[in-house]
């Protein structure tokens, strides 16, 4: 199974981030520059951990700033590769 940009968008909606906002997000641009709040980002990280059974280390977390980053990170953990 491959984790896709669409999967991440769906997860963002499930985590309570505004659907309209999620649909407009450019996968390559940092969340915080597109209206996702600093409260949403940790919740998305937690949702990612729960959804794909991975742990995001505190060292890695700051570098996960875009939808593309999430897809790559999950793949790097052997999920969705």
């Amino acid at each position, binding site marked *: 199974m491959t984790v896709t940009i669409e999967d991440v968008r769906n997860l963002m909606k499930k*985590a*309570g981030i505004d659907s309209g906002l999620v649909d407009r997000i450019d996968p390559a641009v940092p969340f915080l520059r597109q209206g996702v709040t*600093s*409260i949403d*980002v*940790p*919740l998305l*990280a*937690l*949702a990612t951990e*729960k959804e794909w059974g991975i742990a995001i280390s*505190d*060292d890695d*977390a*700051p*570098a996960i700033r875009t939808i593309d980053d999430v897809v790559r990170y999950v793949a790097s953990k052997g999920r969705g590769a």
Partner: protein
Amino acid sequence: MPDTPRSRRFTVARFREEDAEGVVALFSAVYGDSYPIAAFRDPALLAAQNRAGRITSAVARSDDGQVVAHSGLCRSSPPFPRLLEAGIMAVLPDWRETFVAMRLGVWVMESLVLETPAEAVFGEAVCNVTATQRLSFLTGYAPVALEADLMPEGSYAREGEPGSVSCLVVFRSWRDRRRALHVPAAYRDEIAFLLEGLGLERDLVSASSLLEPDPTAISVEDFGAAGVRRAALSLAGRDIDEVIDTLEAPGASAHVRVRQVCVSLAHPSCGAAVDALRARGWFLGGLLPRWFDDDALLMQKLEGPPGFDRVHLHGERAAAILDLVRRDHERARSAAGREEARPGASS
């Protein structure tokens, strides 16, 4: 690594007595010097309450040892001592853009709880924003009740909400046993819905509409600063109307704007209690599993009109609970209107 707030390092751990001064300083920085729980204004009391197990604190410390966040579990209103409340969260403003609140909250709700005698945990997630609700749902907690207007006006003014704020009660069971639940006829469908997905085995039996000959068994607690009166009713006797009169009386020292009764569903007379409350304009709040060890039904009554339009919720289940509460409030309001219009009714 970029030098952003998110890259700041911290450690989440159980409270140590040497953290007490730092925790009190944290709460003072976040809430001023009037935080309602005395232990968070007094380091010695905080340490003592942690030793006694009334509070189980967790902290996040920065690399230089400063306490930058606190959360924990505590004994609060429920009569059942192994139902703990999760919360007591404070995060230094400089640290709010880090992952500290999320990491600490998850650790408390998933891990710290296993180091306590808790059989179940509940939380009160504020409804001016949805962040706490979302964190709760992601850690396996489910909404079970809505406490209308629980937090008084001004509590969240700094966050842009000047009015009172409702709280969504969330719940997770860790250990439970199958048991019977007496179900008041008026709320049979609602209780069945609220039990769904909680992992609790319940045999639903019809409650009685008859009062017991014994006096009503009830304990009442006033939260003066918040204007909240909360009662735990375990048996409904023939004096139930006088008991409700007392519940509805003004506060001795502070204005009571929110009244709640947690009605134990262990005793058949809960049906009569709920009938009596409904007849006096009380409305449904939801289910409070394990409140008395056995489950309770939350009934509530407000001094003013509820701020349902200010309630922000995450998820279909939470929205359905608001809908139940809102409809029952409308039923109570209509019934009160009919009673006032009845010839000979007292004003």
